[in-house]
């Protein structure tokens, strides 16, 4: 090993593990230089030891701790904000759930009566052809009907367990569309294919807003009128 190779491959620590250790025994100049380097390193260690007491004043730590606490408060506030935002998907889910619940309530109304007409039974905007019996009720003033129009001889089917209409009670007739499955209690045939199809029906509401009777609106040939 040459002198240049020795100094170029000098390890960081001691020479014990270095392949150049033998070179110092052969080269007096490098050995002397090596000794001086070691003395300098020892001197630098003493300088380092003398500097150990030099530290940042306490106000630096105080300032940093204050900054840390301020940041921690900010993070907590932001985390709280994010936790609310994480529930931002709830409104559409709740809306969908409400719609589903309304459909269920409609079915309950039809099966058990004496329930308010749900929102899903919204009036149909465009009138359709009506069966003769329906025309009778449609002849009633405005959207009001007499009790006779949904009597035993009419097409109206009393909602089970619904209260009877009082003689002078004002009733209202609304036309709604509902799924076949919701009308199953009225005897509509429902299959897996047409369960979600909608049909048109007239609902008689008492003065308390409760459904009293339902009539399925049919075409001239007797088939159910389906919403298009």
């Amino acid at each position, binding site marked *: 090993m040459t002198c240049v190779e020795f100094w170029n491959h000098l390890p960081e620590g001691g020479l014990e593990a270095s392949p150049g250790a033998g070179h110092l025994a052969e080269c007096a100049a490098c050995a002397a230089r090596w000794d001086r380097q070691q*003395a300098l390193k020892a*001197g630098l260690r003493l300088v380092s030891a003398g500097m150990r007491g030099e530290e940042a004043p306490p106000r*630096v730590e105080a300032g940093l701790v204050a900054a840390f606490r301020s940041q921690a408060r900010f993070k907590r506030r932001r985390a709280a904000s994010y936790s609310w935002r994480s529930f931002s998907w709830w409104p559409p889910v709740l809306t969908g759930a409400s719609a589903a619940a309304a459909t269920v309530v409609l079915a309950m109304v039809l099966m058990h009566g004496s329930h308010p007409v749900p929102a899903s039974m919204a009036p149909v905007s465009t009138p359709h052809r009506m069966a003769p019996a329906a025309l009778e009720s449609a002849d009633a003033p405005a959207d009001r009907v007499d009790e006779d129009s949904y009597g035993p001889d009419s097409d109206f089917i009393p909602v089970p367990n619904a209260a009877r209409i009082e003689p002078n009670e004002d009733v209202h007739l609304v036309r709604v569309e509902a799924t076949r499955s919701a009308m199953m209690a009225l005897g509509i045939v429902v299959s897996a294919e047409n369960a979600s199809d909608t049909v048109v029906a007239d609902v008689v509401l008492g003065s308390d807003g409760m459904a009293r009777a339902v009539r399925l609106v049919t075409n001239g040939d007797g088939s159910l009128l389906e919403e298009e």
Partner: protein
Amino acid sequence: MIKREMAHESTKTDDELLARLRRGDEAAFVALYRRRQGAIYRFAVHMSGSTTAAEDITQEVFLALLRQECGFDPERGTLSGYLFGIARKLVLRNLERGRADVALETEADDAAMPELAVIDDPLMDLTRREGIEALRRAVMALPRRYREVVLLCDLEELDYADAAVVLQCPIGTVRSRMHRARALLFEKLNQDRNPRLAVGPWKPMRVAI
């Protein structure tokens, strides 16, 4: 109680403390600060020559650590090296603003660097108080690129690999700068002992301390 807590923290590694710091653990932050602030502050003082600047730099270094996007990557080096790296950048920025660096930093100076000359062994003095102080002054008078490598590797005991990360240069460059820095220190110590020998690359310099 606090002392017991701090003693407990002192057994944790830097990475463990950093992980807890990220979760908002103030005790971990304080422990990490107390462990590392001295070295960062000393490096900043001896590089900038100003205790006021060193305070600001130390504060900035640890504030950077608080930031979520601080960019420390354990794969690339130690936390200590990372902190020194930030401190160095801040020091350089400070020096650029203040132009307070020594005026002995050109490649020509490197080329004219003397070999280690034994005149009247100044190293004998290093065991005495005056000798230690002379060596300290010699370190502070080194050109910036050599001073920083001596501060990091000899005085703060970083290994060459960490120093290479801090200085953003190859490890071979760290090694060669160390060699030249030591040669300059020998020369300076010789010069102090015998002013008539003050020749060669040493020029008048301006040092702000």
